[in-house]
């Protein structure tokens, strides 16, 4: 089999740390029980497995009470809990023009049910001026929903600045950290984040099927749980518990996945989020620089690694994105993602709708050689296609 160069970490990170697979195997081999559904040794140990993951994520996000972290199957579920539960007819909500459909679709659905929606415009590089949000706030504004970084261009959003505005104006802030949890420092208190939706399988280096939601104390009062059922608590009552995290965690959780997520989070803490950021920034800077020297290549976003996550969106003149992505895969073994990346609004903003772009997203395990190889591959493809090109 030919060598694989995986540059699709913005979709899901791969490979994962060895410790992640080991933790899942160990849970399977030695624990295996249903967490908190009984008082026996293995059930308590399984519940401790879940708590270990909760504690690690609380530490990563600067959350002092770990019971404010609810586990879900992904960030999408977390965002749906907040959007569908919080917004009522007559409410006004604000979002940005760089959102993924995990935010946009639930908001568009809410808008068909009497919620009014405003979309703050971002620049063609995907950047948001916090003032654009402030200008849209009305007395009916309930919440602002925004990504921490675009999954299309990697552009990092001014979450702390918007958080300060939101707090001052009495509006709630819900952040989609799908692209940043594990990749950038996050402090829910410093950034005034009321709800933080995260996924476990991207930069947190956990397995697919894990994710969660941080909810500031007291806000659970306004958000009904879309899922009701067994929690292992208040079993004598036929109504859902109203306390965290049980209110939102009906049914047997993905304990084996959370064992893996805990290991991923530990790997990040042991490595240091600063070290991870520095490495990913260097890879991104070199990728941008290398691609920039190729004739026919156009790079989208800020083109400044310090202002974005490890995501580079590009096009090559004369080749449509899906064709380019397929050539990278078939001829070079490079895994990329073409098209609209589930974010039509973002592509409209950067003016690549409806064709889209090819997205290359390095991760912590990507090497400098992988980047050079990808740059050479794209240079060859561009040269062949355009009959010109340097490098």
């Amino acid at each position: 089999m030919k060598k694989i160069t995986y540059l699709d970490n913005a979709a899901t990170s791969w490979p994962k740390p060895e410790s992640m697979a080991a933790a899942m195997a160990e849970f399977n081999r030695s624990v295996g029980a249903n967490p908190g559904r009984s008082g026996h040794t293995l059930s308590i140990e399984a519940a401790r497995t879940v708590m270990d993951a909760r504690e690690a994520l609380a530490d990563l996000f600067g959350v002092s009470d770990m019971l404010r972290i609810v586990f879900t199957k992904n960030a999408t579920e977390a965002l749906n809990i907040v959007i569908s539960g919080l917004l009522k007819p007559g409410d006004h909500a604000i979002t940005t023009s760089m959102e993924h459909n995990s935010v946009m679709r639930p908001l568009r659905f809410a808008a068909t049910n009497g919620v009014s929606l405003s979309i703050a415009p971002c620049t063609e590089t995907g950047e948001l001026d916090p003032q654009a949000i402030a200008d849209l706030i009305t007395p009916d504004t309930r919440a602002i929903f925004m990504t921490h970084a675009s999954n299309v261009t990697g552009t990092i959003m001014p979450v702390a600045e918007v958080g300060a505005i939101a707090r001052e104006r009495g509006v709630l802030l819900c952040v989609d950290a799908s692209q940043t949890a594990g990749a950038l420092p996050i402090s829910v208190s410093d950034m005034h984040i009321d709800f933080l939706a995260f996924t476990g399988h991207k930069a947190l280096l956990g397995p697919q099927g894990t994710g969660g939601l941080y909810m500031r104390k007291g806000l659970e009062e306004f958000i009904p749980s879309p899922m009701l059922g067994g929690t292992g608590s208040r079993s004598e009552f036929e109504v859902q518990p109203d306390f965290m995290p049980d209110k939102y965690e009906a049914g047997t959780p993905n304990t084996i996945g959370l064992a893996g997520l805990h290991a991923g989070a530990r790997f990040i803490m042991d490595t240091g989020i600063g070290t991870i950021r520095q490495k990913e920034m260097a890879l991104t800077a070199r990728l941008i620089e290398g691609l920039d020297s190729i004739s026919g290549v156009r790079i989208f976003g800020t083109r400044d690694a310090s202002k974005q996550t490890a995501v580079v969106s590009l096009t090559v003149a004369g080749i449509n994105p899906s064709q380019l992505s397929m050539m990278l895969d078939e001829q070079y073994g490079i895994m990329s993602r073409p098209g609209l990346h589930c974010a039509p609004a973002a592509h409209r903003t950067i003016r690549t709708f409806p064709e889209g772009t090819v997205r290359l997203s390095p991760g912590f395990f990507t090497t400098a050689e992988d980047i050079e190889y990808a740059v050479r591959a794209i240079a060859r493809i561009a040269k062949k296609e355009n009959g010109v090109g340097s490098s």
Partner: protein
Amino acid sequence: MSDEGYCVLLFDSVSSTLLAERTLKKKGISHKVIPVPRQISSDCGVCIRFRPELREEIVSTLKGAVEFRDICTL
């Protein structure tokens, strides 16, 4: 082993019980997570057993960190 003479802390949920366990462990206060004894009705299946002389220390340690529902003497 008989539980007689011990106290137990009861919680709303397993998560709270294990958060209390973590808090007590960090302080090095002797305790044990056990299934809720049959004679006590509780909201969740596990509780924390401790020696009665530790009661005050445990209550003050958990204050502000995790809420418990009740303390019973066995």
